[in-house]
């Protein structure tokens, strides 16, 4: 314990001194027109945040009207200070930490000396700088954009009363939280591993225990509340007690355990891995001769290693999260988004059927029994041995045939014959006047009317368009109705009026001083609008 607090405390102080140093840099950078690195800026901003937070804390204390948010902030603040040293002191072993502080005593005066002479202090600190800090600093610099907001801008926003409520985004806090979390995440990853071991039957007795507990929950849901409490009492608190007051249930560790359990022999699904580290077994400490300093160093190394391992696990689990979110996305925008209409329709109908069926049947089913039997049979089915045997029984061909039948039923039992959306499209066939009034030469098929007010006309460039009708494409996502052809709109006055064009009519043509055009329409069809897409795609 002492080792952890010692190292932790020192690390904190390192961060503190680095921050102080960088803040100093910031101050000097202000006076001189010198370029400031992102990292320095971040630390400067972070310290100003801290100051702001402290001011807020004091203000809220003075006003005595504490909102929940403030309270939480206070908790966070005070928690950070709590975790430093005092908490780990043990009331029963006063002498222990008193002597510890005595031995650490001579080190403490050296720190102020270092800060008195900044250059020396910096050198000392960089020598001490933990590789984790370096790593995190690199990470911060990688995260940050190049054009980070100016400090003045930031402080202005900090003082904005509306923004005071929430905790600000700060890369340092983020990185710090990440760092703290990573050291504590070991338990979570261990839990994750143990869950995997349980599911894979690598800890068969644990799996069976879990199944028994699940069965108990199924038949009496009250256990859902009881078991977590039991876990807190007997999984966390009693081991804590047995750690402090060891019950010493065994005299010697036996050299070799004889005998096997039928349960385990029957159900073992892989390499055995013990689940509970037990405090009952008294271990002899053979390393009593070691120097406590060495032990502390070893502990420190172990901590760092654990940190790296945890960081790797965190990275992996984040990758898992990313792939999981990708899968979710695929479902939401693909299967559930009617991208493949056959599949989605089949899925919806199956879901609807299941829903209705379960609704109707549910009063007549003993759900406790069903869920218990379901849990047991699922777990038994995924047992490695049983799974391979099941796989042998259920032949691959059968699966293939089933899949084929499913596909066929998707293909032929789902009838996709909704009437498509019908719209018309238009193009204008534009002619240019030649030298003689009656001499018109074909210019283009265009979407633009190319009237005297037209921007292209004013810019004296031909409108966008194509030479032949065959080159005209339907709008994106639309298709031409193959049974319709381009039709000349003979009622030119209508579309001219619709556009507010006061021009001369000549048959189906709308004529102005140098151009005439007629409107061609054609029907286009669309079966469905394109499937939804996430906003960032």
């Amino acid at each position, binding site marked *: 314990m002492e080792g952890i607090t010692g190292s932790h405390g020192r690390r904190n102080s390192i961060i503190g001194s680095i921050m102080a140093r960088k803040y100093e840099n910031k101050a000097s950078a202000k006076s001189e027109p010198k370029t400031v690195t992102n990292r320095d800026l971040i630390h400067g901003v972070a310290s100003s945040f801290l100051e702001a937070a402290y001011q807020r804390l004091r203000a809220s204390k003075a006003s005595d009207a504490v909102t929940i948010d403030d309270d939480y902030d206070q908790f966070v603040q005070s928690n950070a200070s709590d975790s430093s040293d005092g908490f780990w002191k043990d009331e029963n072993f006063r002498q222990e930490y008193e002597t510890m502080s005595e*031995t650490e005593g001579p080190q403490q005066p050296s720190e102020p000396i270092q800060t008195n002479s900044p250059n020396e202090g910096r050198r000392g600190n960089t020598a001490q700088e933990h590789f984790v800090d370096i790593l995190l600093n690199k990470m911060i610099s990688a995260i940050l954009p190049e054009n980070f907001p100016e400090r003045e801008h930031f402080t202005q926003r900090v003082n904005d009363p509306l923004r005071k409520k929430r905790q600000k985004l700060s890369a340092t806090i983020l990185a710090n939280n990440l760092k703290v979390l990573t050291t504590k995440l070991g338990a979570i990853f261990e839990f994750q591993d143990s869950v995997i071991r349980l599911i894979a039957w690598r800890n068969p007795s644990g799996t069976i225990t879990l199944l028994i507990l699940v069965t108990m929950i199924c038949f009496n849901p009250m256990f859902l509340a009881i078991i977590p409490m039991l876990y807190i009492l007997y999984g966390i608190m*009693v081991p804590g007690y047995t750690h402090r007051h060891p019950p010493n249930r065994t005299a*010697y560790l036996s050299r070799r355990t004889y*005998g096997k359990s039928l349960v385990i022999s029957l159900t073992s699904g892989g390499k055995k891995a013990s*689940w509970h580290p037990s405090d009952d077994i008294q271990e*002899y400490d053979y390393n009593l001769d070691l120097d406590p300093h060495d032990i502390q160093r070893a502990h420190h190394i172990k901590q760092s290693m654990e940190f790296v391992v945890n960081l790797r696990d965190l990275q992996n689990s984040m990758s898992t999260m990313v792939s999981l979110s990708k899968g979710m996305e695929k479902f939401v925008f693909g299967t559930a988004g009617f991208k493949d209409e056959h599949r989605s329709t089949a899925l919806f109908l199956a879901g609807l059927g299941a829903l209705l069926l379960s609704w109707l049947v549910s009063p007549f089913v003993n759900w406790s029994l069903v869920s218990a039997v379901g849990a047991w049979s699922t777990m038994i089915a995924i047992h490695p041995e049983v799974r391979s045997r099941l796989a042998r029984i259920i032949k691959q061909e059968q699966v293939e045939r089933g899949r084929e039948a499913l596909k066929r039923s998707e293909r032929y039992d789902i009838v996709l014959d909704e009437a498509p959306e019908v719209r018309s499209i238009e193009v204008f066939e534009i002619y240019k006047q030649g030298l003689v009034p009656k001499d018109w030469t074909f210019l283009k098929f265009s979407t633009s009317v190319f009237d005297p007010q037209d921007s292209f006309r004013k810019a004296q460039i031909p409108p966008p368009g194509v030479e032949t009708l065959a080159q005209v494409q339907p709008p994106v996502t639309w298709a031409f109705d193959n049974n319709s052809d381009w039709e000349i709109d003979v009622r030119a006055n209508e579309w001219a009026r619709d556009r507010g064009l006061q021009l001369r009519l000549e048959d189906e043509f709308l004529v102005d001083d140098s151009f005439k055009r007629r409107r061609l329409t054609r029907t286009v069809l669309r079966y469905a609008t394109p499937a939804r897409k996430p906003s960032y795609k």
Partner: protein
Amino acid sequence: MSEKGANFYAKLVQKQGQKTALTFTTAPQISWTLHRLYPFLLIFDGFLNNLMWCCDDVCLPFIYLALMKMAVNLGSVSEKETSLLKTVVDTWLGLLSLVFLVLSVTYYISSVLRELKQDEPPTLDDIVVMMENVAYKIERMREDVAEVFKLQRGQIPSLLIVLTPIYWFMARYVISPKDYVTFLLISIATFHSSWCQCTLRLIWRSLFARQLWHMICRWQVRPHPSTDICYNIVHPALEINVPEDLASLPEPQLAVKLRAFIRTEQQIEKAPQPDRPPGYLPITVMIIEYQINENQRKWPLDGWTHNLLSYERTKFTTNNEEGQDWVASTSPWEFQETIERDWFWLDDSWIPHEWIYCDTDWDIKGAKDSLNCYTRSKSWTRSSFRVLRQS
């Protein structure tokens, strides 16, 4: 580090685990017997491990417990209300569990025997270590039970008297025989587990639980603080020579004068008795010494205070001659006012003695406060006398 006068720490005694080899010093017959005993020891150790939940895999005892609980269902008498299907399923599961239990016990035993055969034969030391292990575990279990039944002989009848009606009521109206057997089974199977023991110990930390326990199991009629203070007779009849004119005084005045004579008499008691000088008359007095104990308990936050537990000694107690170890009493200063008329104080005031430090059960540990001392008591004594015969 060590040069700077840092603290020097002693080391704990550790069992090094090395012993003189027993192979050549043991008689072959004993070795042979022990060797034959070894499988039984292993199996018994496995059984104890399960009972104490201290095996490598704590899930196994739980699974066995669940199986046993299901097997208990087998013995239940089918009631008329329950459906046939439920009875059939219960019976089937119970039978299955029972068979599985029996099978796993046989499997365990046979696997132990098989592995022993395959493995190289155990050394004598292995066997002895295993024996010690088994003995250690049995001793632990005995301690667990002894903690609970730390009753004195007189308390068992009272326990029976209190518990029998409750028990009868419970068995008659509250729980069915099946539930009772299940409860008994679970409590026996879990009692020796370390976490059950820890729970008991943690419960024992609560004052309320202790009071309840004493109310049920150790209830005793404690008399109210009495004025009958225990006393030691210092001198049943001490003869003192006083001047004649003094001897003729009435008793109260005589007593005041007599005090000085008694004190000198006590001082020279050990010396050979001088002859009575002329003009002196003998007066016989009886001297007794009252003793009142002041009791205190150590509280982690407040230190030594008179705040004692409600069932243990009170602030002032006196020894009792009738079996009981203590009787509550009034304070010495209260008591000194109630002394009878023909008794006179010999000492001017109560004489305090040194504190005697005891553990939490008032077993004496010594004269100095230590980590295992939670209570202490100090006796106040004062002698008084009574004129027996005036000649």
